[in-house]
């Protein structure tokens, strides 16, 4: 039996004036309340699109200067009909998957080691701080010299972009382990390995996932800027060419693809964060 059920079975705590109402707000929001965020969010998006469409329809500016959402939608459909987009998406997706995937693995390992071993942190701190305070995109010309204009140079810049926020957040998660919990674990004679697996690691998960989420933003920046500067294929390359040839609706359609990817990845990670934090009492205002 959960504590919520216990409360329900024993509604003394609910107050005398209007117990049903009190309990509803504490235990489960009503149906409308539950969908409130989605409904209000959708209305807000529709409002912005409508205003945008109306302004565009007034045709104060030309389509190539200010296309409306409808123009962008049509451009999007056309993109997929022509079929080149698949190669661009595959290229960008591959860069993102490899670069971001490597950043997750290495960032996690380095971050955990830095958090757990103080001396390793002392050794790594100057290097991590150097790269974290440098816009990693500034290294792109170097990567082009090293790796050429194929996907390797983009993978490198995506990897470096996402790596450092992941390292720093993972390390912070380990370092933020409550001293009281460590004391309890030591008092019961827990081995270091057990402390790491059962106390430190689960406590760091929210920090780690935040690092992953921040990494997504940096990785997508790497994809777009990397391809804007020099690439053969890719969604960023598509944006660059469409922009240079004044195909503004097409350019915006590609931007929306990037934004959509970012939103999907961020949402997945947000869901994971919530799942790992299901032990936090849900208090709705």
């Amino acid at each position, binding site marked *: 039996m959960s504590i*919520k059920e216990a409360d329900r079975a024993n509604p003394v705590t609910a107050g005398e004036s209007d117990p049903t109402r009190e309990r509803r707000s504490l235990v489960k929001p009503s149906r409308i309340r539950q969908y409130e965020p989605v409904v209000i969010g959708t209305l807000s998006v529709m409002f912005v699109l409508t205003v945008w469409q109306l302004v565009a329809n007034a045709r104060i500016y030309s389509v190539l200067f200010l296309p409306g959402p409808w123009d962008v939608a049509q451009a999007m459909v056309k993109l997929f009909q022509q079929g080149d987009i698949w190669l661009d998406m595959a290229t960008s997706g591959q860069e993102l998957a490899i670069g971001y995937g490597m950043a997750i693995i290495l960032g996690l390992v380095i971050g955990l080691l830095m958090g757990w071993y103080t001396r390793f942190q002392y050794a790594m701190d100057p290097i991590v701080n150097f790269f974290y305070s440098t816009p990693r995109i500034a290294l792109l010309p170097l990567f082009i010299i090293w790796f050429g204009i194929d996907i390797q140079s983009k993978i490198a810049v995506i990897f470096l972009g996402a790596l450092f926020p992941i390292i720093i957040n993972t390390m912070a998660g380990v370092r933020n382990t409550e001293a009281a*919990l460590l004391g309890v674990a030591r*008092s019961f*004679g827990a081995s270091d390995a057990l402390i790491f697996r*059962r106390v430190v690691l689960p406590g760091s998960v929210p920090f780690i996932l935040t690092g992953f989420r921040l990494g997504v933003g940096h990785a997508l920046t790497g994809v777009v800027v990397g391809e804007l500067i020099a690439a053969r294929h890719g969604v960023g390359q598509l944006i660059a060419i469409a922009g240079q040839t004044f195909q503004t609706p097409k350019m915006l359609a590609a931007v929306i693809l990037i934004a959509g990817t970012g939103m999907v990845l961020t949402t997945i990670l947000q869901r994971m964060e919530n799942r790992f934090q299901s032990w936090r*009492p849900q208090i709705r205002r």
Partner: protein
Amino acid sequence: MYDRSAKLAANGVVIEYWMQRSRTLFTAVQGVDLVVRTGEFLAIVGPSGCGKTTFLNAVDGLIPIASGSLTLDGREISKPGPDRAMVFQQPGLLPWRTVLGNVMFGVEAQRSMGKQEAISRAKQQIDLVGLSGFEDAYPLELSGGMQQRVNLARALLTDPEMLLLDEPFASLDAQTREMMQLELLKIWSKTKKTALFITHDIKEAIYLADRVIVFTRRPGRVKKVVEIALSRPRDLRVKRDPQFLTYEDEIWESIQEELAVPAERLIAGMPAA
């Protein structure tokens, strides 16, 4: 009433800290001599900062002693062991684990019990501390008193020979604290564990203990030992017993001498006697 043989013996225990900032050696405890008898409930009271918690941490084996000897059943204490279990001032529960998972954490860390056995015995402990029905609740859903019950159950599940309690009720409100004291005595009389209880609450110490030890101010030493000859089982009314109040006066005066400020300025903070 209890076996007179010593469970825990401290002889001239000195505990020192190296203070990194001032680069000085700080003496927290200076030559503590005491004995905790098997099955006894011993309480240590003292002015705040007198080193009583530090002493308890040394008994748990979390910090080393600089000199003297500290033995449990004649064996020198050097590190935490399954023969002792601590109930902490802060509950120290893993927030992502349920009550059941937290109660099991102690035996899990000691690797002293199989999982199935741990689950069924943990449920018994949860029952014993009055938390049945809350096995699947998370710590953040519990009140402070309930969290301390989990803290206690976690220690009891490891079946220690000696229970160490570090001001476990200090952060609870007055009513909850009294209820917890009553329940602790019930559990203690059932389990017959030797108990070493640290507190700054004189009434709590007298109510719970067979003997109360008063520490001096820092660096802490044993100043006074008071045998509490109140009959057991004790209910909360014993706190108004004239004998109880005599003990309280005696201990209060002993502690008061240790406080640097003149007595007149402390009258306001004196417990109602």
